[in-house]
């Protein structure tokens, strides 16, 4: 088990280095030096050369790449061009809030989707199943910004129950205390995830219900409740593990929209602002974080799956 985790982690590091190489190469092709952006279009060639020299943009490419890796390892993503702060500092301030939003949304989504999917499979082709299927397809077809707008329109503007802006607290603790203002942003993310997760859960539970071991469990005299809890749930949740792992970066992307609609100070909003400002260091770092999240998501899913499913061989 330990060797398996070590080996998978080593592979993950190699993948991340590959991603960094790709980002570096792409950036270098379109944008070899930020000198003009910083110094302005009217800067003299001498000034540009001097800038390149002080910032290392005239060194060989491999040297620049190694420097890039070295800086990244030390969480040094450079200075934001517009926000007068280091990118690392900005990320540190915002990451916790983003993680809180997506983490809470993910947990709630799984807690709803797993039982919902199982219930739909057990009562398949009933009115309940058709309704749930209809509703989740309906919601699944909505773009997330539209979900956000509808939630705001109904619950804040029309009913006036909830604030339309997310918590503005700077600390994670502060956000938690301001839970009421987080209900709408979390709900938006939950709605979109539940729709997808519950579909998978339903079909996985249907597959498992058709297996003989369910019939055997019933033949033992177990009550329907025990059959579902002891035999069905674990087996049919296995595909969800992979799905959750793969959706970790999705939640980050979802945050981009949810955070900007609700004006929530997280990584997504940071990226969104940087996009408008052409603040490249932030965009680069965000891309890298996204790539790392994909890799981590896969890694976590694989490890969790080997723990949950004894059939998976550790190779």
């Amino acid at each position, binding site marked *: 088990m330990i060797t398996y985790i070590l080996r998978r982690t080593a592979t993950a590091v190699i993948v991340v280095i590959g991603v960094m190489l790709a980002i570096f190469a792409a950036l270098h092709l379109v944008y070899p030096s930020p000198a003009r952006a910083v110094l302005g279009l009217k800067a003299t060639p001498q000034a540009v050369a001097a800038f390149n020299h002080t910032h290392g943009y005239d060194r060989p490419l491999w040297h620049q790449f190694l420097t890039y890796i070295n800086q990244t390892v030390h969480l040094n993503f450079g200075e934001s061009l517009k926000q007068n702060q280091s990118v690392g500092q900005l990320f540190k301030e915002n990451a916790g809030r983003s993680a809180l939003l997506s983490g809470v949304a993910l947990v709630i989504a799984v807690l709803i989707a797993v039982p919902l999917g199982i219930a739909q499979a057990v009562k398949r082709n009933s009115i309940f199943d058709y309704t749930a299927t209809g509703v989740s397809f309906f919601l699944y077809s909505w773009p997330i910004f539209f979900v956000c707008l509808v939630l705001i329109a109904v619950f804040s503007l029309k009913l006036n129950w909830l604030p339309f802006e997310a918590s503005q607290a700077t600390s994670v603790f502060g956000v938690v205390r301001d839970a009421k203002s987080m209900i709408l942003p979390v709900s938006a993310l939950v709605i979109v995830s539940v729709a997808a997760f519950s579909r998978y859960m339903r079909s996985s539970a249907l597959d498992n219900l058709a297996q003989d071991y369910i019939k055997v469990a019933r*033949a033992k*005299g177990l009550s329907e409740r025990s059959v579902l809890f002891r035999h069905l749930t674990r087996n049919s949740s296995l595909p969800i593990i992979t799905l959750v792992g793969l959706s970790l970066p999705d939640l980050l992307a979802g945050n981009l929209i949810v955070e900007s609609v609700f004006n929530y100070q997280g990584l997504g909003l940071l990226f969104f602002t940087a996009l408008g400002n052409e603040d490249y260091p932030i965009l680069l770092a965000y891309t890298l974080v996204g790539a790392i999240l994909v890799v981590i998501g896969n890694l976590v899913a694989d490890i969790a799956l080997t723990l949950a499913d004894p*059939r998976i061989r550790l190779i």
Partner: protein
Amino acid sequence: MAGEPILEIRNLRTEIELTSTVVHAVDGVDLYLNPGETLGVVGESGCGKSMTGLSIMRLLPPGGRVVGGEINFAGRNLIELGDDELRRIRGNDIAMVFQDSLTALNPTMTIGRQVAEPLRLHRHMAKAQAMARAVEVLDLVGIPRPTERLDDYPHQLSGGLRQRVLIAMALACEPKVLIADEPTTALDVTIQAQILELLDRLKAELGMAVMLITHDMGVVAGRADRINVMYAGKIVETSGTRELFEHMHHPYTQALLASIPQLDQDTSTRLFSIPGIPPDLADPPPGCRFAPRCRLATDHCRSNEPPLSGVTPGHLAACWYPVDGPLERPPAELPSQAIAANGSRPVLLEITDAVREFPVGNPLLPFLSPGSVKAVSGVSLVVREGETYGLVGESGCGKTTLGRMIVALEKPDGGKLRLKDTDIATLRGGRLRRTRRDLQMMFQDPYASLDPRMRVGNILSEPLVVQGIGDRRSRNARVAELLNEVGLPPNSVDRFPHEFSGGQRQRIGLARALILNPAVIVADEPVSALDVSIRSQVLNLMKRLQAEHNLTYIVISHDLAVVKYLSDRIGVMYLGRLVESGSGDDIYNRPAHPYTAGLVATIPIPDPSLERGKQIAAVRGELPSSINPPSGCRFRTRCPRAQQKCADEVPALRPFGPAHLAACHFPLQEPA
């Protein structure tokens, strides 16, 4: 068998509601089960035998429900019981064993917990106590070192051991009735014999009544006290076992038995076959349901349903014109192939020292890999033109891999495969593609081996198109000709595979293999997915086409009777090696290798007097790992005659007669 029956079913009717139709799966079944007896329920797929078992347990598939009748168990009608009351009976008083041991066990739960589950539920045992009892039960069903196995997951056990776990689970609460639904169908014959023996022993030890549901007449012949034969949702005949085999009254029973190839069958005779297919139970025919396929049927049969009746109360049959006793074997019809003449036929295929190994584990990290599966380890054999070579052995013996190498779907890691003058193993690209014309395959699963989105006409003409043979007109003519030969109507070309029955699909598969006029057809388990009555139709067809076209078959099967019927010569494989080869008579009547003898002894014979009189020790235990096969003779770990020499030296094939070879240091007869 005196006294009250423990289970009695009266006029049971079960229906399954599908989207547009209602299938009358069980239609007025009466049966009883006495304490301590084994009742065999036999019939082809879809005859309602499993549905009868599932109705008792109220475990019918979605849409299924019991619509009438009584199921009386210990003075209570199970149909009237509430779900809670029935649950107290399920797994406690009546238990069930299912066919597929891989899906019948929860993959993510240890076997200890699964066996202990009914004990905790019905006997309210504490965890430790239930586990202790689980060890007892696992020991009872013959699982070696049960304490160490408690924490194993199902996938860590072999098929035979899993089936034992399933039985252990059913027996944990010492039920009064055990319903075994095809308990050995998914297993090898050697394992099947051991499981059936186990069921018999447990029945005696625990005083249970067993309802043995199966399609295999051989299985019931040896194990059942009484037999109920079912056809199209009804019981057509019920009687004591010996009486049924020797004096059956229903033409269906008679036909069913006659269509099974027997080991002592004259291979030059045609098998009896029942024409047509069983009726659609959504809309069953009026009158006797077997009438449309029955050779004795009259108009009276087609309009009036016969009641289950008979002279003695122990032997009833539902037939207006009952017969008495088995059908006479038909006289030889096919041109008999003189085996002696085979020696002079030209050699078509010569395999020399073929080796195929599949690496296990990550190819990038060879030092962490446990090695490779030795699927085929140095097999040599010769197949002559126009003959049928049968390959038999337990699953995992390498027979399928060898077959795939012969048709160039698998590259050998060593050795030569010579077809006429070319070595198939070294062919590449265009030459390989042209050679594939001569190498065709017929597959086991008639459902998965035909592209469901292609019309039959396209399926059959595709090989011609790929090989660039003929134009559209000549191709269509060839397809029509072949359809006629395999007995399918000409309009089949425009239909899709799902519109055909299993037997018809196997005919399509055979036609596809034939269309290029191949030199060799490798038939991998050609009939094992088919019902007995359909099986004989396909076997007869294969024989007829061989005689007409001078075809060469290599037939791979675990069913030794089928191989014996089809083959001129037979090779027995064990763990990647050929241990014996010879004529059908050599293999079945004069085996030299102890494995062959054991394998032959384990085949259930549909004849109670033979099946019960068996004395020979069958092959015990299970197949060892093919990653680290035993040294020397690979069979030595299961061989009663094994000595030190067997572990030290690999036995070479030695002659025991004309064309009879065996690889054994201590053979059952003196080498010639």
